[in-house]
Protein backbone atom coordinates (compact mmCIF):
# COMPACT_ATOMS: atom_id res chain seq x y z
CA UNK A 1 0.00 0.00 0.00
CA UNK A 2 2.76 2.46 0.91
CA UNK A 3 4.81 3.86 -1.89
CA UNK A 4 7.32 5.67 0.26
CA UNK A 5 10.97 4.83 0.81
CA UNK A 6 11.05 4.76 4.61
CA UNK A 7 9.08 1.56 4.62
CA UNK A 8 11.88 -0.12 2.67
CA UNK A 9 14.33 0.64 5.46
CA UNK A 10 12.50 -1.83 7.64
CA UNK A 11 9.64 -2.41 10.01
CA UNK A 12 8.95 0.08 12.76
CA UNK A 13 10.46 -1.24 15.98
CA UNK A 14 10.16 -0.20 19.58
CA UNK A 15 12.70 -0.94 22.30
CA UNK A 16 12.00 0.10 25.88
CA UNK A 17 15.15 1.35 27.61
CA UNK A 18 13.64 2.26 30.96
CA UNK A 19 10.19 2.25 32.48
CA UNK A 20 9.04 3.21 35.96
CA UNK A 21 5.77 4.58 37.33
CA UNK A 22 6.67 8.16 36.36
CA UNK A 23 9.27 7.83 33.65
CA UNK A 24 9.67 6.00 30.36
CA UNK A 25 12.46 5.99 27.78
CA UNK A 26 12.14 4.06 24.55
CA UNK A 27 13.74 3.89 21.13
CA UNK A 28 11.54 4.09 18.06
CA UNK A 29 13.16 3.03 14.79
CA UNK A 30 12.26 3.31 11.12
CA UNK A 31 9.72 6.08 11.42
CA UNK A 32 9.80 9.61 10.14
CA UNK A 33 10.53 12.30 12.75
CA UNK A 34 7.05 13.71 12.44
CA UNK A 35 5.67 10.59 14.18
CA UNK A 36 7.48 10.93 17.53
CA UNK A 37 6.96 14.67 17.35
CA UNK A 38 3.21 14.22 16.94
CA UNK A 39 3.28 11.80 19.87
CA UNK A 40 5.20 14.32 21.97
CA UNK A 41 2.71 17.09 21.12
CA UNK A 42 -0.25 14.86 21.96
CA UNK A 43 1.32 13.79 25.28
CA UNK A 44 1.72 17.39 26.30
CA UNK A 45 -1.48 19.01 25.12
CA UNK A 46 -4.10 16.45 24.21
CA UNK A 47 -3.89 13.74 26.86
CA UNK A 48 -6.76 14.17 29.31
CA UNK A 49 -6.34 14.48 33.06
CA UNK A 50 -8.42 15.61 36.01
CA UNK A 51 -7.82 18.98 37.63
CA UNK A 52 -9.72 21.40 39.86
CA UNK A 53 -11.80 23.73 37.80
CA UNK A 54 -14.36 25.33 40.05
CA UNK A 55 -13.78 26.47 43.62
CA UNK A 56 -16.39 27.82 45.98
CA UNK A 57 -14.67 29.54 48.90
CA UNK A 58 -16.73 29.65 52.07
CA UNK A 59 -14.22 30.93 54.60
CA UNK A 60 -10.82 32.43 53.99
CA UNK A 61 -8.92 34.24 56.72
CA UNK A 62 -5.53 33.45 55.25
CA UNK A 63 -3.07 35.97 53.87
CA UNK A 64 -3.69 34.68 50.33
CA UNK A 65 -6.76 35.99 48.54
CA UNK A 66 -9.52 33.74 47.20
CA UNK A 67 -8.51 33.66 43.55
CA UNK A 68 -4.88 33.08 44.49
CA UNK A 69 -5.84 29.95 46.39
CA UNK A 70 -8.19 28.86 43.61
CA UNK A 71 -5.36 29.25 41.09
CA UNK A 72 -3.04 27.14 43.22
CA UNK A 73 -5.70 24.50 43.59
CA UNK A 74 -6.08 24.25 39.83
CA UNK A 75 -2.39 23.46 39.51
CA UNK A 76 -2.48 20.65 42.07
CA UNK A 77 -1.86 17.43 40.12
CA UNK A 78 -4.61 14.86 40.59
CA UNK A 79 -3.88 11.18 40.05
CA UNK A 80 -5.91 10.47 36.96
CA UNK A 81 -5.24 6.96 35.76
CA UNK A 82 -8.99 6.40 35.67
CA UNK A 83 -9.70 9.55 33.68
CA UNK A 84 -11.14 7.52 30.79
CA UNK A 85 -14.07 6.61 33.05
CA UNK A 86 -15.11 10.25 33.13
CA UNK A 87 -16.90 12.28 30.51
CA UNK A 88 -15.95 15.81 29.59
CA UNK A 89 -18.31 18.25 31.30
CA UNK A 90 -19.55 19.62 27.98
CA UNK A 91 -20.43 16.11 26.75
CA UNK A 92 -22.30 15.07 29.86
CA UNK A 93 -26.07 15.42 29.82
CA UNK A 94 -26.39 16.10 33.52
CA UNK A 95 -27.42 19.46 34.90
CA UNK A 96 -24.15 20.21 36.64
CA UNK A 97 -23.87 17.81 39.54
CA UNK A 98 -23.06 14.27 38.65
CA UNK A 99 -20.46 11.63 39.28
CA UNK A 100 -19.76 10.91 35.64
CA UNK A 101 -18.14 14.23 34.80
CA UNK A 102 -17.10 15.77 38.09
CA UNK A 103 -15.40 14.93 41.38
CA UNK A 104 -16.18 17.02 44.44
CA UNK A 105 -13.68 17.80 47.17
CA UNK A 106 -13.89 19.87 50.30
CA UNK A 107 -11.39 21.30 52.72
CA UNK A 108 -11.98 22.72 56.18
CA UNK A 109 -8.95 23.72 58.22
CA UNK A 110 -8.57 26.02 61.18
CA UNK A 111 -5.31 26.84 62.88
CA UNK A 112 -5.67 26.52 66.64
CA UNK A 113 -2.01 26.41 67.61
CA UNK A 114 0.42 29.27 68.13
CA UNK A 115 2.62 27.85 65.41
CA UNK A 116 1.58 28.56 61.78
CA UNK A 117 -0.19 25.66 60.14
CA UNK A 118 0.44 24.46 56.58
CA UNK A 119 -2.74 23.70 54.66
CA UNK A 120 -1.80 20.94 52.25
CA UNK A 121 -3.26 18.74 49.54
CA UNK A 122 -3.66 16.02 52.17
CA UNK A 123 -6.37 18.11 53.83
CA UNK A 124 -8.57 17.77 50.74
CA UNK A 125 -11.38 15.28 51.24
CA UNK A 126 -12.99 13.52 48.32
CA UNK A 127 -16.76 13.72 48.66
CA UNK A 128 -17.68 11.70 45.58
CA UNK A 129 -18.31 8.02 45.70
CA UNK A 130 -15.32 5.98 44.51
CA UNK A 131 -15.69 4.53 41.04
CA UNK A 132 -15.94 0.86 40.42
CA UNK A 133 -12.77 -1.05 41.22
CA UNK A 134 -12.04 1.25 44.14
CA UNK A 135 -10.37 3.86 41.98
CA UNK A 136 -10.62 7.41 43.18
CA UNK A 137 -9.26 10.68 41.98
CA UNK A 138 -6.87 12.08 44.54
CA UNK A 139 -4.12 14.64 44.73
CA UNK A 140 -0.68 13.34 43.86
CA UNK A 141 1.64 13.76 46.80
CA UNK A 142 5.31 14.54 46.78
CA UNK A 143 7.86 13.81 44.16
CA UNK A 144 8.72 10.45 42.68
CA UNK A 145 8.66 8.77 46.05
CA UNK A 146 7.43 5.19 46.05
CA UNK A 147 8.09 5.20 49.77
CA UNK A 148 4.96 6.51 51.48
CA UNK A 149 6.88 7.96 54.44
CA UNK A 150 8.90 10.27 52.21
CA UNK A 151 5.98 11.70 50.28
CA UNK A 152 5.40 15.39 50.73
CA UNK A 153 1.91 16.80 50.38
CA UNK A 154 1.59 19.99 48.38
CA UNK A 155 1.29 23.14 50.52
CA UNK A 156 -1.68 25.27 49.49
CA UNK A 157 -1.34 28.06 52.01
CA UNK A 158 -0.34 28.83 55.60
CA UNK A 159 -2.66 29.79 58.41
CA UNK A 160 -1.78 31.72 61.55
CA UNK A 161 -3.49 31.28 64.89
CA UNK A 162 -7.23 31.65 64.61
CA UNK A 163 -7.27 31.71 60.79
CA UNK A 164 -9.37 29.27 58.83
CA UNK A 165 -9.87 28.11 55.28
CA UNK A 166 -12.98 26.36 54.05
CA UNK A 167 -14.01 25.60 50.48
CA UNK A 168 -15.54 23.14 48.04
CA UNK A 169 -13.63 22.35 44.87
CA UNK A 170 -14.79 20.51 41.77
CA UNK A 171 -12.41 18.60 39.56
CA UNK A 172 -13.19 17.82 35.98
CA UNK A 173 -11.62 16.32 32.88
CA UNK A 174 -9.65 18.50 30.50
CA UNK A 175 -6.65 18.62 28.16
CA UNK A 176 -3.44 20.65 28.10
CA UNK A 177 -4.66 22.77 25.18
CA UNK A 178 -7.39 24.18 27.37
CA UNK A 179 -5.20 24.98 30.37
CA UNK A 180 -1.69 24.00 31.40
CA UNK A 181 -3.06 22.54 34.64
CA UNK A 182 -4.40 19.62 32.59
CA UNK A 183 -0.95 18.67 31.27
CA UNK A 184 -0.14 15.14 32.49
CA UNK A 185 3.59 15.33 31.77
CA UNK A 186 6.32 17.51 33.08
CA UNK A 187 8.62 16.55 30.23
CA UNK A 188 8.09 14.81 26.91
CA UNK A 189 11.02 15.00 24.52
CA UNK A 190 12.66 13.01 21.80
CA UNK A 191 15.86 13.21 19.82
CA UNK A 192 17.25 11.34 16.84
CA UNK A 193 20.25 9.22 17.81
CA UNK A 194 23.24 10.01 15.65
CA UNK A 195 24.66 7.36 13.32
CA UNK A 196 28.41 7.77 13.05
CA UNK A 197 30.23 6.20 10.11
CA UNK A 198 33.93 6.01 9.21
CA UNK A 199 34.66 5.87 5.50
CA UNK A 200 36.89 2.77 5.08
CA UNK A 201 38.74 3.99 1.96
CA UNK A 202 39.74 7.35 3.40
CA UNK A 203 40.53 5.66 6.73
CA UNK A 204 43.05 3.29 5.15
CA UNK A 205 44.97 6.20 3.66
CA UNK A 206 45.70 7.77 7.06
CA UNK A 207 48.61 7.03 9.35
CA UNK A 208 48.16 6.09 12.99
CA UNK A 209 48.96 9.60 14.27
CA UNK A 210 46.23 11.12 12.15
CA UNK A 211 43.76 8.55 13.43
CA UNK A 212 44.74 9.40 17.01
CA UNK A 213 44.18 13.09 16.27
CA UNK A 214 40.65 12.36 15.15
CA UNK A 215 40.05 10.11 18.15
CA UNK A 216 41.21 12.79 20.58
CA UNK A 217 39.22 15.54 18.92
CA UNK A 218 35.97 14.03 20.15
CA UNK A 219 34.89 15.51 23.53
CA UNK A 220 32.53 12.60 24.16
CA UNK A 221 35.01 9.75 23.54
CA UNK A 222 33.02 8.27 20.69
CA UNK A 223 36.13 6.87 18.98
CA UNK A 224 38.99 4.63 20.01
CA UNK A 225 42.24 3.66 18.32
CA UNK A 226 43.66 0.19 18.50
CA UNK A 227 47.50 0.32 18.66
CA UNK A 228 47.92 -3.28 17.55
CA UNK A 229 45.74 -3.10 14.46
CA UNK A 230 46.32 0.67 14.00
CA UNK A 231 42.61 1.14 13.29
CA UNK A 232 40.27 3.94 14.20
CA UNK A 233 37.03 2.48 15.53
CA UNK A 234 33.81 3.63 17.07
CA UNK A 235 33.74 2.99 20.82
CA UNK A 236 30.20 4.13 21.58
CA UNK A 237 28.01 5.85 19.01
CA UNK A 238 25.38 6.81 21.59
CA UNK A 239 27.78 9.28 23.22
CA UNK A 240 27.88 11.47 20.14
CA UNK A 241 26.40 14.94 20.64
CA UNK A 242 26.74 15.97 16.96
CA UNK A 243 29.28 18.64 17.80
CA UNK A 244 31.03 17.76 14.50
CA UNK A 245 34.52 18.26 15.96
CA UNK A 246 35.65 15.01 14.37
CA UNK A 247 34.37 16.16 10.98
CA UNK A 248 36.20 19.48 11.34
CA UNK A 249 39.38 17.72 12.47
CA UNK A 250 39.19 15.31 9.53
CA UNK A 251 38.94 18.30 7.20
CA UNK A 252 41.95 19.97 8.82
CA UNK A 253 44.15 16.90 8.24
CA UNK A 254 43.09 16.85 4.59
CA UNK A 255 40.74 13.92 4.96
CA UNK A 256 37.29 15.42 4.48
CA UNK A 257 34.53 12.83 4.36
CA UNK A 258 36.31 10.49 6.77
CA UNK A 259 33.50 10.79 9.31
CA UNK A 260 29.83 11.01 8.42
CA UNK A 261 27.18 11.72 11.05
CA UNK A 262 23.45 11.47 10.35
Amino acid at each position, binding site marked *: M*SHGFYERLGEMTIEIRDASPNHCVFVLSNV*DRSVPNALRR*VLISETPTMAFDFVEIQENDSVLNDEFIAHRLGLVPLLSSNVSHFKYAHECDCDGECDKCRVEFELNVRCTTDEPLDVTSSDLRNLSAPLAMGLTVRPAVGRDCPNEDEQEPIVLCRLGKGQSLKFRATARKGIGKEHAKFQPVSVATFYAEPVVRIDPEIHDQLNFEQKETVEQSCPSLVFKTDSTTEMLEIEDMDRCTRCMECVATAKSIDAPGLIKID
Partner: protein
Amino acid sequence: MTDAASFIIRKEDHTLGNLVRMKLLRDERVIFAGYKVPHPLKYDLIIKLRTTKDHNPVDVMKENLEDIQGQLSKFQSKFGEAMRQWEMESAHIVQSHSGW
Protein backbone atom coordinates in the same frame (compact mmCIF):
# COMPACT_ATOMS: atom_id res chain seq x y z
CA MET B 1 -8.01 16.10 -14.93
CA THR B 2 -7.22 17.90 -11.68
CA ASP B 3 -3.94 17.03 -10.10
CA ALA B 4 -3.91 19.55 -7.25
CA ALA B 5 -6.05 20.03 -4.17
CA SER B 6 -6.13 22.14 -1.02
CA PHE B 7 -7.60 20.56 2.09
CA ILE B 8 -8.82 22.73 4.93
CA ILE B 9 -8.89 20.91 8.26
CA ARG B 10 -10.49 22.65 11.20
CA LYS B 11 -9.63 22.26 14.88
CA GLU B 12 -6.19 20.80 14.14
CA ASP B 13 -2.63 22.06 14.27
CA HIS B 14 0.96 21.06 13.52
CA THR B 15 0.47 17.78 15.36
CA LEU B 16 -1.60 16.51 12.45
CA GLY B 17 -0.36 18.83 9.71
CA ASN B 18 3.32 17.91 9.90
CA LEU B 19 2.54 14.21 10.24
CA VAL B 20 0.35 14.16 7.12
CA ARG B 21 2.64 16.44 5.12
CA MET B 22 5.75 14.30 5.81
CA LYS B 23 3.84 11.15 4.90
CA LEU B 24 2.68 12.67 1.60
CA LEU B 25 6.24 13.70 0.73
CA ARG B 26 7.33 10.07 1.00
CA ASP B 27 4.76 9.05 -1.61
CA GLU B 28 6.24 8.73 -5.10
CA ARG B 29 3.03 10.00 -6.73
CA VAL B 30 3.29 13.36 -4.97
CA ILE B 31 4.88 16.30 -6.76
CA PHE B 32 4.14 18.91 -4.10
CA ALA B 33 2.91 18.67 -0.52
CA GLY B 34 2.89 21.45 2.02
CA TYR B 35 0.92 22.59 5.01
CA LYS B 36 0.42 25.81 6.89
CA VAL B 37 -1.41 27.11 9.93
CA PRO B 38 -2.76 30.42 8.55
CA HIS B 39 -2.97 32.09 11.96
CA PRO B 40 -1.51 30.84 15.26
CA LEU B 41 -4.57 31.94 17.22
CA LYS B 42 -7.01 30.04 15.04
CA TYR B 43 -7.16 26.26 14.90
CA ASP B 44 -7.25 25.82 11.14
CA LEU B 45 -4.86 23.92 8.90
CA ILE B 46 -4.38 23.97 5.12
CA ILE B 47 -2.69 21.08 3.33
CA LYS B 48 -1.85 21.69 -0.32
CA LEU B 49 -1.20 18.65 -2.46
CA ARG B 50 -0.23 18.18 -6.09
CA THR B 51 0.15 14.74 -7.63
CA THR B 52 1.29 13.40 -11.00
CA LYS B 53 -1.26 13.72 -13.79
CA ASP B 54 -2.38 10.07 -13.58
CA HIS B 55 -3.43 10.26 -9.95
CA ASN B 56 -6.26 11.96 -8.14
CA PRO B 57 -5.02 13.99 -5.15
CA VAL B 58 -8.10 13.13 -3.10
CA ASP B 59 -7.42 9.39 -3.53
CA VAL B 60 -3.74 9.83 -2.73
CA MET B 61 -4.62 11.79 0.41
CA LYS B 62 -7.16 9.15 1.48
CA GLU B 63 -4.69 6.31 1.03
CA ASN B 64 -1.98 8.10 2.97
CA LEU B 65 -4.37 8.95 5.79
CA GLU B 66 -5.36 5.30 6.05
CA ASP B 67 -1.69 4.34 6.04
CA ILE B 68 -1.02 6.71 8.90
CA GLN B 69 -3.90 5.22 10.88
CA GLY B 70 -2.50 1.75 10.27
CA GLN B 71 1.01 2.82 11.24
CA LEU B 72 -0.23 4.42 14.46
CA SER B 73 -2.29 1.43 15.54
CA LYS B 74 0.75 -0.75 14.82
CA PHE B 75 2.71 1.60 17.06
CA GLN B 76 0.14 1.17 19.80
CA SER B 77 0.22 -2.61 19.68
CA LYS B 78 4.02 -2.76 19.39
CA PHE B 79 4.36 -0.46 22.35
CA GLY B 80 2.05 -2.68 24.38
CA GLU B 81 4.14 -5.71 23.41
CA ALA B 82 7.40 -3.94 24.24
CA MET B 83 6.04 -2.95 27.68
CA ARG B 84 4.93 -6.52 28.41
CA GLN B 85 8.36 -7.74 27.35
CA TRP B 86 10.00 -5.19 29.62
CA GLU B 87 7.83 -6.14 32.57
CA MET B 88 8.57 -9.80 32.06
CA GLU B 89 12.29 -9.12 31.84
CA SER B 90 12.34 -6.96 34.98
CA ALA B 91 10.36 -9.55 36.91
CA HIS B 92 12.77 -12.21 35.65
CA ILE B 93 15.80 -10.23 36.83
CA VAL B 94 14.26 -9.70 40.26
CA GLN B 95 13.45 -13.38 40.50
CA SER B 96 16.87 -14.60 39.52
CA HIS B 97 18.56 -12.29 42.05
CA SER B 98 16.37 -13.45 44.90
CA GLY B 99 17.41 -17.00 44.08
CA TRP B 100 20.97 -16.34 45.26
